[in-house]
């Protein structure tokens, strides 16, 4: 399974692998919103938590359809299903690779973008913490959606429609944690709920996604 993780990371960093796609999108959102909304710092600071979380969420969504589709098209998914790798493990490793390539860079760059959106000083820790705890769920939920739609040509639209509603709880709790942190309130409760969503996703979704893959390989 480590071999699969290594291969996916290697593929992501080679030409055309899609590394940086989500990062560039996230950057564009954070740069363009102040230009669109205007330079008023108080307004920007108020919407910053929401904008940052929406941006991170959409950036994650951008590369989801590649998670299984490429391996499905070139037959590698069939061969993995016949190999000793459990499909649950395949899903978990692919979601982990997606998180390392897309989610983790978003977490790391978010404080810089918070500066662009004049996020209040108290919010930075909670921004980092909430994205760090929340983005794994985005990758796993996305992996489940990608597994459901793997057989479809141009499945990106239906994938977004399936995945976005499931992203909503993460978005609400994540943005709420940052907002409360920024105004000095108690941000621990939304953060814990966010962590609960991620842990629940880790526990359940690899099995659900593997079942979906099995059905789609038939």
């Amino acid at each position, binding site marked *: 399974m480590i*071999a699969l993780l290594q291969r996916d990371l290697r593929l992501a960093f080679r030409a055309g*692998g899609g590394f940086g796609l989500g990062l560039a999108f996230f950057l564009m959102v954070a740069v363009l919103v102040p230009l669109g909304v205007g330079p008023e710092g108080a307004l920007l600071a108020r919407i910053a938590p929401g904008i940052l979380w929406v941006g991170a969420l959409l950036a994650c969504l951008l590369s989801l359809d590649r998670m299984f589709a490429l391996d499905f098209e070139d037959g590698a998914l069939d061969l993995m299903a016949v*190999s000793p790798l459990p499909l649950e493990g395949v899903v978990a490793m692919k979601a982990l690779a997606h998180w390392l390539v897309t989610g983790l860079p978003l977490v790391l760059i978010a404080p810089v973008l918070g500066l662009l959106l004049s996020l209040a000083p108290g919010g930075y820790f909670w921004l980092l913490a909430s994205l760090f705890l929340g983005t794994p769920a985005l990758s796993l939920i996305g992996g489940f959606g990608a597994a459901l739609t793997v057989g479809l040509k141009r499945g990106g639209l239906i994938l977004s429609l399936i995945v976005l509603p499931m992203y909503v709880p993460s978005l609400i709790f994540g943005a709420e944690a940052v907002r409360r942190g920024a105004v000095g309130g108690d941000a621990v409760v939304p953060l814990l709920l966010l962590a609960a969503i991620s842990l629940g996703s880790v526990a359940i979704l690899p099995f659900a996604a593997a079942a979906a893959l099995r059905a789609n390989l038939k």
Partner: protein
Amino acid sequence: MLQVHDLAVSRGGLTVLEGLGFALRPSDLLVLRGPNGVGKTTVLRTLAGLQPALRGQILANPDQITYSGHADGIKATLTVGENLGFWAAVHGHSAIDPAISAMNLTALRARRAADLSAGQKRRLGLARLLVTGRKIWLMDEPTVSLDAASVALFGAMLRGHLAQGGAAIVATHIDLGLPEARMLDLTPFKAAATRQGAFDEAFA
């Protein structure tokens, strides 16, 4: 090693073959024959466990089976060695040199798979069978886009596998040049057309 009793398989919701039965012993090579669409690929995918059988029994250890389909699962941005190394690692092995030399890929080892010709890609796909270390090879049209020399190379590899107690089922249209191969024509097992009994009721 592999026994099949009264197997029925379906594709796209239609039964394509039924009553299929055969046994595969070590060192056996079974060649599936039949016109396009008769269900060769479907049988192989069913035996590989990629789709469920409609009826019947397949007695085999799934951990001994590997499959090679129309697509080779090759990643264009990885080199030949990296592609093969991945599949070897997945199957818990690390040695890829015997497979590389068996399919004459030594000179291409460091080349990106994107720069391979169709026949070279196929050779890489076939070399993957060797690094799995599994006993039963299920192969779907393995010789597509291979030239005569490569078909001979493939024949030698297959013969080596059989000599080591392996077995293989190959769906192919061409003569592999292996006299020990047992032919199995799938045409007689073609499922009878579904009875149109409901037609009159619907239009009465």
